[in-house]
């Protein structure tokens, strides 16, 4: 593609966001490895984490290749500081209890599927190829988290309470998923990226349908906390990065 310099920056920023969303959520889910309620769920969550890690690698590899100077995926994952990460704040919310994790996952997966569907129609072939692969995985992730929402919401009094409380905590970060900034507008204009705001009605309809099946209520949120895509993160990210980046930074160039 023959793109201007500013568009190159927009493209790499855009890809970085996609990569960071997948990378940070993957790292979060890895925290459940060995701690999930059952062996089967442990494997299920680890599978999802690995899917997301695979997606992160594809996005970051592409992002790095479109940067000047070129950076590789490991460099981007391990040698950026918190303020240089551009994922949405939803994915850095703490794992909390099992309901917190599944609610966070559900809100993300339902958005992720719609986003990847849009990106699979991107005019940029490499983006559409990654999106088509990732959408298959995300579709399964969404089935998994949707079923948990119903089980927890429609389960015991306690599981219902935990699920509803998790929703109240996560809903403030939903607005950011659909917020459009200059980078998004530029990518939409070029036919490369997705119109996030346009995805909201379909997302809302699906989410509310699943919540209703679980006797859960979509909270009325007054807040829309944003800034993740511009590097404004909570302290939670600092701890997460310390763990994720420790090895690569302590032993530069280490190989398996």
């Amino acid at each position, binding site marked *: 593609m023959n793109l201007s310099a500013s568009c190159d920056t927009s493209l790499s920023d855009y890809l970085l966001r996609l990569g960071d969303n997948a990378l940070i959520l993957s790292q979060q889910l890895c925290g459940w490895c060995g701690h999930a309620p059952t062996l*089967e769920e442990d494997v299920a969550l680890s599978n999802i984490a690995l899917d997301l890690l695979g997606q992160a690698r594809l996005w970051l590899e592409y992002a790095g290749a479109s940067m000047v100077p070129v950076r590789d995926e490991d460099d981007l994952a391990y040698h950026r500081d918190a303020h240089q990460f551009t994922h949405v704040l939803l994915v850095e919310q703490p794992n909390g209890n099992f309901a917190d994790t599944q609610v966070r996952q559900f809100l993300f997966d339902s958005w992720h599927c719609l986003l990847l569907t849009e990106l699979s129609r991107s005019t940029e072939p490499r983006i559409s190829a990654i999106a088509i692969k990732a959408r298959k995985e995300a579709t399964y992730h969404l089935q998994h988290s949707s079923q948990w929402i119903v089980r927890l919401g*429609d389960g015991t009094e306690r599981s219902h309470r935990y699920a509803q409380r998790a929703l109240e905590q996560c809903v403030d970060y939903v607005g950011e998923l659909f917020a459009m900034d200059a980078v998004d507008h530029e990518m939409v204009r070029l036919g490369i990226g997705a119109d996030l705001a346009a995805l909201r009605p379909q997302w809302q309809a699906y989410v509310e349908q699943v919540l209703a099946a679980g006797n859960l209520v979509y909270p009325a949120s007054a807040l829309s906390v944003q800034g993740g895509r511009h590097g404004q993160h909570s302290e939670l990210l600092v701890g997460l990065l310390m763990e994720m980046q420790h090895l690569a930074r302590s032993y530069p160039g280490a190989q398996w």
Partner: protein
Amino acid sequence: MPPNRQPNLRTGVMSMPNELNTWEVFVRSQNGIAHRHIGSVQASDSQMALQYARDVYTRRDAFVSLWVVASEHVISSADQDQAAWFETAHDKDYRQATYYPVPDGVQHL
């Protein structure tokens, strides 16, 4: 599962995930080949069992279909019937095709 519990009508998903049952998992590696038993999972409802079967058993190999069956619905032969049921075939070689000599002159067997 207890009779008083019904799946959620809209989703088929069963509540009460703290009550786990065992499910037998069968996989089909390609169309035209029979499902074969590959192991079991613990799950509270059929949909969870199916997903866990997928997560646990299909990570490395390619399959085209999965079955799960509640273990309690598998009716099995009894250990004490071993001799009466299965050992009676041992001395009946004539039930094997290889028991019979191939007549001279048979070309397309």
